């Protein structure tokens, strides 16, 4: 019996001179929630497109549910439920009409289709009035829920969620995390593509970090963080960040890496210091910052994150990549 729902073996995809996915191999076990993490252009989307049969690999094999996608594309498509990054619904139709359409594409009809639509309308938490309105009148969160429901109609064994939280506010984002966790508890195999480290860390059993078409790290979030021995991060908020200050921090003994980061929630510039022994070096950090004339407004100790793993492996921050 095959314990893996997805098996990707030495897959490469070239677009003329560009190698979008470079010799990638990975396995996703049944019922696993697998996070595919990486900046834009890392090759996540191409890999996802190959997984759902939209793009053929240049070389290598992809199996879903034991079926080779090249030989059994239709069978694989029936096993997959794909939630695209964008809201892909017909805005001139209402939720029920959209679900009916996508259900028919997956071969559902009659009473079975009707029952499934009603079940999923409950899942979307839309009231009867909203159900009758065209999608164009829905809020972002409502659209997102219908977008997911459309991928669940045929009760797929494997789900591909491509940046499902893109453009959502924090409230809707948490609601969506709950939906993803519910689907996970139901035993579905889920591949979650994201560039949000906290999302991958919070939800995933396994994470693959991609960069420049390659998988540069693979394992559980805890394993990855442990693997690179980065248990701690010191986050300092000084009154101002200068090159001189950054240089002083870098010279402190025990600092593995330091970088400027912008805290979007607090809207402030911070310095992240990655170290294996945060508590030991904290006094040196405080004195080092003071020695160059800067004042410390706040200091916070935290364990390492996947973002730190990415920085250690690539020398770049994911957020910097997003801004490029």
């Amino acid at each position, binding site marked *: 019996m095959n314990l893996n729902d997805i098996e990707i073996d030495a897959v490469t995809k070239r677009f003329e001179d560009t190698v979008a996915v470079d010799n990638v191999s990975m396995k996703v076990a049944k019922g696993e929630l697998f996070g595919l993490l990486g900046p834009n252009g890392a090759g996540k989307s191409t890999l996802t*497109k190959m997984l*759902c*049969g*939209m*793009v053929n690999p240049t070389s290598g094999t992809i199996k879903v549910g034991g079926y080779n996608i090249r030989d059994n594309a*239709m*069978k694989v*498509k*029936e096993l*997959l439920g*794909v939630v*695209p990054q*964008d809201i*892909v*619904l*017909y805005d*001139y*139709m209402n939720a029920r*009409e959209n679900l*009916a*359409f*996508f259900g*028919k*594409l*997956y*071969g559902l*009809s009659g009473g079975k289709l009707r029952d499934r639509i009603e079940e999923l309308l409950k899942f979307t938490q839309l009231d009867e009035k909203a159900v009758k309105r*065209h999608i164009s009148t829905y809020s972002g969160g409502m659209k997102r829920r219908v977008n997911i429901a*459309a991928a669940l109609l045929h009760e797929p064994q494997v789900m591909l969620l491509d940046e499902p939280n893109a453009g959502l506010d924090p409230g809707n984002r948490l609601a969506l995390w709950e939906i993803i966790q519910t689907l996970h508890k139901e035993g579905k195999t889920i591949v979650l593509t994201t560039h949000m480290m906290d999302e991958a860390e919070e939800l995933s059993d396994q994470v693959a970090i991609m960069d420049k078409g390659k998988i540069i790290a693979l394992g559980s979030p805890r394993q990855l963080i442990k693997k690179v021995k980065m248990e701690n991060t010191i986050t300092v908020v000084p009154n101002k960040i200068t090159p001189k200050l950054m240089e002083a921090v870098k010279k402190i003994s025990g600092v593995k890496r330091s970088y400027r980061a912008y805290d979007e929630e607090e809207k402030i510039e911070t310095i992240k210091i990655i170290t294996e022994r945060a508590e030991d070096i904290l006094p040196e950090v405080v004195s080092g910052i003071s020695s160059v004339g800067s004042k410390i407004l706040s200091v916070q100790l935290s364990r390492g994150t996947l973002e730190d793993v990415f920085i250690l492996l690539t020398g770049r921050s994911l957020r910097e990549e997003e801004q490029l």
Partner: protein
Amino acid sequence: MKLKRTIRQVFAIAKTDFLGIVRNKTAIFFTLLFPLFFLIIIGFTFGTQGTGETSRIQVGTVNLDGNMIDVNGTVSQNSTIGDVFVQVLKDANFTVYEYDVYGDKDTNGTAAYDISRGEIKIAVVLPANFTETLSYQYTDSLGIPIPTRAHLDLYTDPSDPTGSIIGQQSLLGFISGFIKYYQEIAINQLPENLQDYAEVLADPITVSTSEADVSGRQLRWIDYMVPGTLGLVLLWSGLNHASVAIATERTKGTFQRMVIAPVSSITVLAGKFISSLAIVYISAVIMLASGLLLFQVNLYWNVPAIILAIFLGALSAIGIGLIISSIAKNEEAANSIAVLISVPLQFFIGAFFPLDIMPEPAQIFGEALPFTKLVYAMQDIMTKNLPFEAVMPEIIYLTISGLILFVVGIIAYRLSLKRL
């Protein structure tokens, strides 16, 4: 089982595509109603022409016949025949405006001024000696009449060649009738033994014109135009809709969602084809029904032939639409290309104007278009009541061009899937 599922998928795609049109006011206008808009505008402008109706032709008369003139050394001021000319012109149902002078384009109240402003299409100037010449008042010293011709000056509007030609032809026809009437009166005044000779001299060649037994019906321009507008339907409803059908879905991402479902690309295409075809037929019904209700068109209704010809024409239109849809980067680009093609093409398919009036290269281009063949076939069937076999050359042309364009469209569509 699989076939049943595929059929359900095809009709689901067709229905969704169709709803995209009927629930979008802009799409309804450009896809279904734009050809109708053309029909109404042009129909009300030119539609009733072809029935010999002259009331729409505005003629200016400058009757100088009553002016004083020297005839054989004496002053004459006779205006009898000039007045009769103007009256008969009015009786012939021309819209007549009378002027004292021809004048110039800058002087208000003159015929030239009104021509320059499009108020009248043509002006006729009757000379001061019109009556005197036609009544043989010019004589020699012995009192014998000197043969003198009366001369009319016609002035047309060079800025409106079509209106001027129509006005000129109608007025020349009227003058010819007036001359004939005058000849009969003059000949009757000759001695009886000379009258036969004079008649032959006046009309050495006789011509009789009869309408050929073509349709057995009196047809107006609109009767030709309505079948012709089915060509417009193909351009606006078929080509335009097919152009944006896939491009729109690709832009919105819904196409990708169809591709990742267990649906073959040909199933998607079949659904799009059915909805495009439905839109073409609905638009055709709207056009024909409007022709009947608004203009009371007088046509023959060989429904199976009409349905078949439209289907074959739609293959070409949808084929071109698929090619556009496949090469265009997005919905906007597809729409622009479709408009760029269909707007000029509509003037080359013989729907509004016969191709004969166009320059030769334009005629050759127009004749090569499958839509022109549809227009010809529809005009032959619906106005002349010709049997289906009579339009076989057009039908064969439509079939071959339709199949070629549709197959090329499918190839372009399949290639475009690689761009997803």
